[in-house]
């Protein structure tokens, strides 16, 4: 088990280094940072001096090392677009994205899991067929289309909910929250539904197919042959066996909510990190892009690690200690 953890940690570090390398290389390629920082009339000698002062003359690996060091401290330089430290910008936007993602994840789980279990247990009922059809639509439609559709129905035609922005927010320490105001909550509804929809349908279909698979196994057949009541078979055996693989995949899926929030934030002009990165790419704001890249890679690496460990904890077959292996007849 320890060997496993160490190996995964090593992998994670390798990935982070690779990502850091890519992020750093961005800087080398996107034209001359000096030009973005000084005016057009600055004489060449001054530029050269500036370059030297900033350490841009140093060999590649020295600069890379410096970049890594600074990155470890959370410093990524100054945004080209806003002229402010990147980490400050991201920290401001973080609460918006996190609140949205959290709400969406909760929605996806609360609706997706039960729906999946139901359609797995009663695949032929009309309700199940309805869910499956809706879920197919949910999976097929791109997120931005569902967002636009929701905006059209609830904001343009009915006028019940706002179509952009976050509403009024309350500042608590370094965090801004929209949970505490009515307008904040109203503004949260459409974006979180949009964000949750894809995940919700994915979870539902996953749980359903796992459930159907489990219900065909020999041990379920044997449980039935032993006369166990349906309640025990479905919720004792089948459910547990279904959830084990589902938990891990779901964890990964929910992590990807952060990625999909880019789209939702753009549709609703939600002031989060996703919206920031889209604008940054359009502007070629490299420091922001680099920071986002590293941050997101870190996030996913951590999620994957946790999910792998979770798998280990949940499936007793993987926990097999060599000594406990079967012996004797």
């Amino acid at each position, binding site marked *: 088990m320890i060997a496993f953890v160490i190996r995964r940690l090593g992998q994670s570090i390798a990935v982070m280094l690779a990502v850091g390398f*890519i992020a750093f290389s961005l800087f080398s390629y996107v034209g001359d940072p000096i030009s973005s920082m000084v005016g057009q009339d600055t004489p060449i000698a001054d530029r050269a001096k500036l370059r030297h002062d900033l350490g841009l003359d140093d060999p590649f690996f020295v600069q890379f090392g410096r970049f890594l060091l600074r990155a470890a401290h959370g410093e990524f330089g100054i945004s080209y677009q806003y002229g402010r430290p990147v980490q400050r910008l991201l920290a401001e936007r973080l609460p918006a994205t996190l609140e949205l993602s959290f709400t969406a994840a909760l929605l996806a789980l609360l609706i997706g899991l039960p729906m999946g279990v139901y359609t797995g247990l009663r695949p032929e009922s009309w309700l199940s067929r309805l869910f499956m059809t809706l879920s197919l639509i949910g999976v097929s*439609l*791109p997120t931005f289309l569902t967002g636009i559709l929701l905006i059209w129905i609830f904001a343009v035609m009915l006028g019940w909910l706002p179509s952009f922005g976050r509403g009024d927010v309350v500042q608590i320490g370094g965090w801004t929250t929209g949970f505490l105001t009515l307008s904040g909550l109203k503004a949260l509804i459409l974006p979180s539904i949009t964000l949750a929809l894809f995940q919700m349908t994915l979870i539902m279909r996953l749980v359903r197919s796992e459930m159907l698979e489990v219900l065909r196994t020999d041990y379920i057949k044997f449980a039935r042959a032993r006369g166990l009541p349906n309640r025990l078979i479905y919720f004792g055996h089948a459910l547990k066996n279904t959830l084990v693989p589902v938990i891990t995949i779901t964890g990964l899926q929910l992590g990807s909510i952060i990625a999909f929030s880019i789209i939702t934030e753009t549709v609703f002009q939600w002031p989060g990190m996703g919206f920031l990165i889209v604008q940054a790419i359009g502007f070629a704001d490299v420091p922001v892009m680099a920071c986002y890249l590293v941050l997101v890679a870190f996030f996913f690496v951590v999620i994957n690690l946790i999910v792998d460990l979770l798998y280990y904890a949940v499936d007793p077959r993987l926990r097999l200690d060599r000594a406990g292996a079967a012996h004797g007849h």
Partner: protein
Amino acid sequence: MVTESADLPVEAAPPRAVGAFRRALDSDLFYSFRRSPLTVVAALVVLILGGSALLCSWVAPHNPFDLASLNILDSFDPPAWVDGGNWTYPLGTDDQGRDVLSAVLYGMRVSILVGFSAVGLALASGVSLGLLAGFAGGWVDTLIMRICDVLLSFPAILIAILIDGVARSVLPHDRQDEIAFSVVVLAVTVLPAVQFARTVRGSTLVERNKEYVQAARVIGVHPVTIAFRHILPNVIGPVLVIATISLAVAIINEATLSFLGLGLPLTQPSLGTLIRVGQNFLFSGEWWMILFPSLALAGLALAVNLLGDWLRDALNPKLR
């Protein structure tokens, strides 16, 4: 459960092609196709949309990109059946006076082309990589699989966005519109390629130990020939199912990129670009500019997804 596989009674040999066609019509696959009206509808939709898109130069009433034919006075015309519309522009016009119907057709063609190119490229690269990894084994396999694992742990859209973003920063600004197509295709290709590589590698590992491969090796057939002539036909099955679904995903990812402004530009718009532009006019009441591209995109994605779903269920031996 008993599944029978009674063959057709042997007839006096019909010509091979006809025999094959008849076998196909009578096969379990086509039977399940016929039985599911939804799938038939989906196939029709794909044919109609796809066909009209690819033939758009002939089918579309106007060419929305011929600047000379545009009349700014015609802009913001609503669809024909609404007050103020006329049948020259059946689905209305946009802010530049372009016919929405034609724009949608051309845009659909771009979307489909990107989708097919991406999946085609992904197939070529992914299958080859998978065969290589599975067949060669050793450190080659480990290296390729590690990279695939890492890439697969990120969502496709994120990778597409990042590749696109990086490409944009790296390439000179003034050439960006021209190469946008290639950049977008590349961005959307990476993840399906990795998926294909994974699947093929798994199947190759299984096939590699089978006797026909060992026999070929003993005879001295070159490994590359073994890989492509012998192993490939046996592992391609599941890949094709994934490929169909990947097509829908590729189309959607490209649309998303274009919607975010990171994909195809206005000079060569895809459905996503049209939707992005249309969103600006949603509140001012020109709803047709966003509705029709959205319908086209949704219809296309849904239909391809349905077909992929049906294909997967029909080919899944466990569900029979």
